[in-house]
C-alpha cells in the first residue's frame, strides 16, 4: 500500500476535491475515500493536507459547507460546490488534461527530433 503512494503535484489536490463534489455534497472522509478508490489506491490524501485545502477552498468561495447527518447518522460537515467552484473545476480539468497530455507526449518520445534548422 505504501509503495503505491504517489506524491500530489502542486495544485492537483484542489481539482480532485472539486471533482469529488460534482455529484453532490460530501464530507471530508467521503472525499478521501472517493479519491483513493477512484485512483485504485494510488492517491492517498493525508488529513493534514485535505482539511486545510477544504477550508481554503471554502474561504475562497469555491465551496459551501453545511452540517448534516452522515450515512451512519452522525453529525458531519458536508461540502458542496458553489457556482464559482463549478466554473473553477471546468477550468482546472482542462488545464490538467492539457498538462498531462503534454507531459505524456514528451515522455513517450523515442528519439531526438531532427533539428529544424537543418531541414
Amino acid at each position, binding site marked *: 500500500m505504501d509503495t503505491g503512494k504517489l506524491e500530489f503535484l502542486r495544485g492537483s489536490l484542489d481539482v480532485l476535491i472539486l471533482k469529488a463534489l460534482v455529484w453532490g455534497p460530501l464530507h471530508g*472522509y467521503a472525499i478521501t475515500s472517493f479519491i483513493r478508490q477512484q485512483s485504485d489506491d494510488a492517491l492517498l490524501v493525508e*488529513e493534514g493536507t485535505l482539511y486545510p485545502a477544504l477550508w481554503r477552498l471554502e474561504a475562497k468561495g469555491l465551496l459551501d459547507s453545511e452540517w448534516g447527518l452522515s450515512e451512519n447518522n452522525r453529525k458531519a460537515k*458536508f461540502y458542496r460546490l458553489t457556482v464559482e467552484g463549478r466554473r473553477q473545476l471546468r477550468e482546472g480539468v482542462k488545464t490538467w488534461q492539457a498538462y498531462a497530455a503534454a507531459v505524456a507526449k514528451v515522455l513517450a518520445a523515442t528519439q531526438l527530433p531532427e533539428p529544424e534548422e537543418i531541414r
Partner: protein
Amino acid sequence: MTTPPFWRRYARFFGPDPAADVKEELGFHLESKAEELVAQGWSPEAARKEAERQFGDLRALQRVGQRIGAKTERQKQLADYWTDVRHDVRYTFRTLVRDPGFAVVSILILALAIGANVAVFSVVNTLLLRPLPFPDSQELVWIAPPPTSCGWSCATFSSDGYEEFRDTSRVYQGVTGYEAFTTPENFRLTGHGEPVPATGIEVIGNFFQVLGVQPAMGRLFTAEEARAGSVVPHSTSGPAVLLTNAYWRRQFHSDRSIVGQAIELNDTPVTVVGVLPDSFDFGAVFSPGAKVDFFAPLSLDTERMWGNIVTLVGRLKPGVTVAQALDDANRVAPDIYFNVKYPQSKGQYKDGMVPVLLKDYVTGKLRHSLIALWFAVGTILLIAGVNLSNLLLARAAARAKEFALRGALGASRWRIVRQLLMESLLLSGTGAFFGLGLAAALVTWLAHQGSLALPLLSTLRIDRQALGWTVLIAVAIAMIFGLLPGLRIACGNLQEVLKDSGAGAGLGRKHERIRATLVVSEIALACVLLVSAGLLLHSFTKVLEVDLGFQPEHAASINVEYDASAPTEDASVAKRTAIFQQVLARVGAIPGVQAVGISDYLPLGPNRSWDTPLPKGKVYKPGELPEPLVYVVTPGFIRAMGIGLRGRDFTWADDRKSERVIIINASMAQRFWPGEDPVDKILMRGDEQDRVVGVVDDVHEQSVENNLGAQVYYPATQQGPSRAQLVVRSSLPPAELGTSILRALRELNPNQPAAEFRPIRTIVDHAVSPRRFFMLLVAAFAGLGLVLAALGIYGVISYSVTRQTPEIGIRMALGATTGRVQRQVLGSTLRLTLFGMAIGTLMALVTSRIISSLLFAVSPWDLTSYLGMLMALLLVAIASGYAPARRASAINPMEALRNN
C-alpha cells in the same frame, strides 16, 4: 445526506464557534476511519490508535482550521452586512420615490438649513477661527491707544514716535506701519491718454517683510527706496512702487514685463519693482471694503513734520505673549517723543501704545455678531431637524403596519431602526449636497460684496473645513433626529400594531403626543429667533433714524484734482483759492445744482485732528479738553452737505489778510463754553487766535452709532486742506450729473482723472453695512424658522384631523356645525402655539440679554419687538392650522362612518 433534526438549528445558538466546528469535523473523520478499520478486522482500541496515528498532528491541524474558520466567518458577516445595507439603500430609494412629496419637502428643508449653516460656518471660520492670511500671524500685533473720539490722529504715531518705539522695544522681530490718512483714488495714473484714478498707500519700507508677504514677481522695496519715499506731492520723488495683483491684472493686463519698467503717477515716472501675490489683500485686513492699487515706500524723514501719520504693526519674537508686549510698551512709551525737537512732547504716547493681536483688531468687534449669527443658524438647524423628525414620525406612523409585518416575518428591530436611519441619512445626505451648492453660491456672492465693510470677506470660500462641517452636521442631524422615530417604532409592541385598526389607537395617540412636543419646541425655537431678529431689526431702524447731522440724500461727492504749487505759501493759498472759486462757480452754474462746496475730509470716512485748541482766557489741565477733528472747507460746503448752521458760513473774503475764523460743532461749543453763546468767542491755537463765527450740528464722523466728539471747521482760504472733495447738492440723478460735472472739471484742469461720483448715501450705507448684513441674515433665518414652524404645525394638525376623521364624522352626524368643528381644530392649533410661544418667550428673554451688546438704542426687553414678533408667529400659526380645519369641517359624515 439527510435533513438534520430540528434541534440542530440551535447548535450554534450563541453565535458561530469555528473552534468547535473544526473539532467536530475532525472528530467525525477519526471515527469514520476507525470504523472502517474495525470493519477490516481491527480491534476497536487498536483501530482508534491507528486512525490517530495516520492523522498526524491533530492539534496543529485544529489551529489551522480555527484560523481559516474565523476568517471565513468574518468575511461572511461582512458580506451579509453589505448585502443588507445594499438592500436597505435600494428599499429606501423605492419608498422615497413612492412618496415624492415627503422626500422633496424634507430635502428642501434640510438643504436650506444645511446651506445656511455651511455658509455661516464659512464666514465664522474666515473671520474668527482661521488665522489671518500671513505666515505665523499669531505673532502680529496692532499697536494703538485705546479708542478715543479724536479719530485716526489719535490712533497713529509720528515718524519720531515710530522710530523710537522700534529702537527701544525689545519684544519685536520687526515693527512697521502704513500711512493711515489715505483716501481712495489719491493718485492719477498718467502717460496713457486720459488720467485714470488710482489708490496708493504709503507703507514703511519693511511693511511686507514684517507681514511675511513675498512678491509674486520682482522684489520688495530696498532700504534706499524706503528712505527716498514716494511720489506724494509733499515728498521728494521716490521712484519705486509695488503693484497689487488685482491692479496688475486689471490695469496692466497681467503683463509680466511690467516689472522693472516705469509708469507715470501724477505725471512723475516711477518704477514698478514688483507685483504682490493675489493672496495679499490689504483692504480685506486693514480697511474693509477698500481697494488698493499700489504701494509706495513712506519716507519717514519727509513725514517727520506731519505729526501722527503712521499706524503701527509689529511682529513679536517667537514665544512673546501680548501681555509681555504690553509690559514692554508701557516701559518704553513714557520716554518716547512725539517730536524729538520739542522736549515737552516727551511722554505724549504714555499709555497710548497698547499692542493687541492683529486678528483681534481686525475682527474682534465682530465676534459678538458672528457668534450670535452662528447661534441663529444653529437654531435653524435644530428647527429643521425637529421638522425632519416630525415628518419621519408621521411617515413611521403611516408605516407602522409595514414595520410590524416585517417584524413578524423575522426582521430584527435593529434592522428596522437601521432602515429608518438609512432613510434619514439618505435624506440628510441629499439635503447636504444641495445645501452645499446653496452655501457655495452664497459664499461666492458674499466674497464679491466689496461694498460690505466686513474684513477678510474677499478671502471667503468653501474650504475643506466647511466640507467637513457639512458632513458632520448632515450625519449628526440624521442620527439624532432620525433615531427618534426609529426608537418609537422599535419600542412599540408589534402585535398591538397588527391588531390595531387605526381609530383611537394607543400608538396613534402616543405618536401625536410626541409630535405635539416636537412642534411646541419648534415654535419655541422659532420664537427665540423671531424675537432676536425683531430686536435687531428695531435697532437697525433706530440706526437709520439717527440724525447724522447732515443730509445724505440728493448729495454726491467727487475727488477734485488741483495743483496749487507756488514759490511762497501766500501765493499757493491764493492760487488754491482761485482754483476752488473757479471750480465752485463752474459746477454751481450747472442747471439743477443747488449747492456746492469743498472739504478735505468727508464724514464717516478717514479723519484727523491737529491739536487741542483752548478757549481764550480759560485755563485747563492738559488732556482735559478733547482734541477736535479737523475739516478744512470752502464757503458753501456746510450748505451743500446739508449741515444745520447757526451764525455765518465762511465767505471768500475770509482770506489770509483778514481775521482768522472757524466754525465749531455743538458738542465742542458745549464742552468749551458751557452755557455761553460760542459765537464771537476766541479759540487759541498756540499763539494763533481763531474767532468762532458759526456753530453747526454735530456730524457723525466715525460711525453712525458712536458718541459725538468735538469738530472744528477751518476755511480753505486760510488753512491748507489735504485734498479737495467736491460735494454737490442736487435733485438730479447722480449719473447724469456726474458726466456734466466731470466735463466742467476737465475743462478747468485736463489732468482731472475720471474719478467716481459717489452719492453721499453710499458712504452712509457703507458705514451701516455690517449692521444691515447681520440684521438681514438673522431676519432671513427667523423667516426660515417661521416657515419651518408653520410647516410643523400644519403637519401635526393635519395628521390629527386625518386620524380623527371617523370621530369628527360621528360628531357632525350628531349635529356639530362646521364652525364648531373648525373652531375645535383651530383651538388645538392655538394651544400648541401658545404653549410654544410661552416657552419661546422665556428663552428669548435670556438670549436677548446675550445679544444686548449688538442692539442700538433698543432695550433687550423691547416690548415692540416682542409683541410684533409674537403676533406674527400667532398669525402664521393660525394660518397654518386653518387649512386642516377647513378640511375637517368639509368631512362628509356618511363617508367617514362608512370608511371606518
